[in-house]
């Protein structure tokens, strides 16, 4: 769920500038580092009174927002604005460069060892929810992400600056000539995105207790994936994408292969239903009425119902007429699909008791991404800041 906060930043910058801010992950790390540094400097510990503790955390939050915002502004000014209006690859390269520079800067300032925050009770406190123990912090992350998502959606949809953002995103020059200060609008976008990343940094730090200088890379990459998954440029999409990604990562590894095998079988059954009932019906719609004799319809149906038989027949070169042979080659492909699914299920059943290693986590995440993008190239909720609402 933490991906959501970072993904929101990616999505916002992309939504307005049509450009992927690869340095966003590092901005997130900076947020975490600065808040950890603040907490360490203040000497936070559980012996402090609740009020002081809350004050210190607030101060850390302030640092976690302020530092990334400043860095974000500088990066925008120095590395992105001069390249605006050039080809798209240039700011992209610049962003990758900035990402490396920031990472090295973190090492230079804080050293290469992971920064660790003082252990606090509230960071590890847990409550029992429907019989499951859940960390309060995890709940807080979910609530905060959801609230920020709603606030952001509202910001983009209904406020003056939001309108300016949408206009800038669609046609920067035209927006400028309609009296919108595009530079200011873009700066604002970076401020919001960086602040969100900073908050994300603080929360991750509190959740895991420590942060490494290159943490931003993987978090950034996954948040980016989440943003693409939900439809990049789309605010609720980023949160949904993060949710889907987080879920698949968590549950993907805790599922054993036997379960996956059953899922494959379910897919196979659904596929067979589609193949035997829906597809022939659909094909019949495309056949002229005068040819649709009951006999002909039955033959078309048979091609799909007895797909393997017809597949073999087609491969042997026994074709009847043109239309049927189109259906028959269709049947060949369907058969291959069936065999593939059945084989996968069989393999998984054989290894039924084996579990997927956590090392497979990123792989699962990216397989999910590939599958979703194959069927919905614009992401789950579609692209663009403006299209959805």
């Amino acid at each position: 769920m933490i991906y959501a906060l970072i993904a929101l930043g990616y999505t916002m910058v992309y939504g307005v500038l049509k450009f992927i801010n690869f340095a966003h992950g590092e901005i997130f790390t900076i947020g975490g580092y600065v808040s950890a540094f603040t907490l360490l400097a203040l000497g936070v510990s559980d012996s402090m009174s609740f009020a002081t503790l809350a004050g210190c955390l607030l101060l850390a939050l302030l640092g976690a927002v302020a530092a990334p915002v400043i860095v974000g502004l500088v990066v925008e000014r120095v590395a992105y604005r001069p390249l605006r209006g050039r080809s798209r690859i240039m700011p992209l390269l610049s962003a990758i460069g900035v990402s490396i520079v920031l990472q090295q800067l973190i090492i230079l300032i804080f050293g290469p060892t992971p920064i660790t925050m003082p252990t606090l009770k509230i960071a590890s406190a847990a409550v029992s929810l429907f019989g499951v123990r859940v960390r309060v912090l995890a709940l807080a992350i979910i609530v905060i992400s959801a609230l920020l998502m709603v606030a952001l959606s509202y910001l983009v949809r209904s406020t003056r600056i939001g309108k300016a953002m949408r206009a800038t995103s669609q046609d920067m020059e035209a927006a400028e000539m309609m009296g919108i200060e595009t530079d200011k609008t873009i700066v604002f976008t970076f401020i919001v995105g960086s602040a969100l990343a900073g908050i994300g940094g603080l929360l991750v730090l509190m959740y895991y207790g420590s942060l490494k200088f290159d943490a931003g890379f993987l978090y950034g990459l996954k948040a980016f994936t989440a943003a693409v998954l939900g439809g990049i440029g789309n605010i609720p999409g980023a949160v949904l994408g993060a949710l889907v990604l987080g879920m698949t990562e968590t549950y993907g590894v805790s599922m054993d292969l036997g379960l996956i095998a059953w899922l494959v079988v379910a897919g196979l059954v659904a596929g067979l239903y589609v193949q035997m009932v829906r597809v022939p019906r659909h094909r019949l719609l495309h056949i002229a009425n005068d040819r649709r004799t009951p006999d002909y319809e039955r033959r078309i149906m048979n091609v799909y119902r007895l797909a393997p038989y017809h597949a073999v027949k087609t491969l042997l070169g026994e074709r009847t007429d043109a239309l049927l042979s189109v259906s028959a080659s269709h049947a060949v492909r369907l058969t291959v699909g069936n065999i593939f699914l059945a084989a996968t299920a069989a393999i998984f059943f054989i290894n039924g008791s084996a579990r997927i290693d956590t090392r497979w986590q990123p792989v699962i995440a990216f397989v999910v991404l590939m599958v979703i993008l194959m069927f919905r190239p614009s992401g789950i909720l579609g692209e663009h800041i403006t299209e959805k609402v």
Partner: protein
Amino acid sequence: METILNLDGVSMSFGGLKAVDDLTFDVTRNEIVSIIGPNGSGKTTTFNVISGLYEPDSGDILLKGESVAGLRPDQVHDKGIARTFQSLRLFSNMSVLDNVLVGMHSNSKSGLVASMLRLPSVRREEAAMRARAQEILSMFPGRFSGPRQSQAAGSLSYANRRRLEIARALASDPVLLLLDEPVAGMNPMESHELMEQICDLRDAGYTILMIEHDMHVVEGVSDRVIAMDHGVKIAEGTYEQVANDPLVVEAYLGKRSAHTAS
């Protein structure tokens, strides 16, 4: 008569090409001035220079006596110059009403925090802006009524998109309205209707500088016509004067025709 716009020896070149060459002209209050000229004669570049997209290489642009040359496009817009585009540039994913509201952007003052919290002052301002936007849209009777206003601008017909561009430009109550080929691609009936509406705008007090190829429209609305060729002003005056100017005929039809004409 008060001078609204004053171009004083404006030149603009791209590499070796002088797109606009020492251009000087005035537009006075409540006047419709048309710029004509063959393709590539520098008309749209002139518009782009006026609206701040390019900074002129030399010369000055005065709006009500105040220089606007070298300002950013949004600053020029704030000074009171609004424009439409030859190739439509609406925000096509935004609704019709939102497009007009974007045009009002510089007139609205509400800050971020206030608008996030929906303070009463913001709500009042927004309601006023919506009312004004609807009033502007009602200038085109029947074109943007009721549910059309919440439709995406991209789903409108071509002619309606042209009208919406004009509405969006009007939204900021500009001192000077720049129309870049407002009737391009419209059928004769639609262009005639729009012609009348442009005249209505002048009667309502707007000052208009317009680029147009449709001579029928130019004849119908212009108080004055400026002809350009190769970035240079070649003629200025009433429609009749300009249309019969041998240089103009030559620019459009070539040298030989100019001789036979004269």
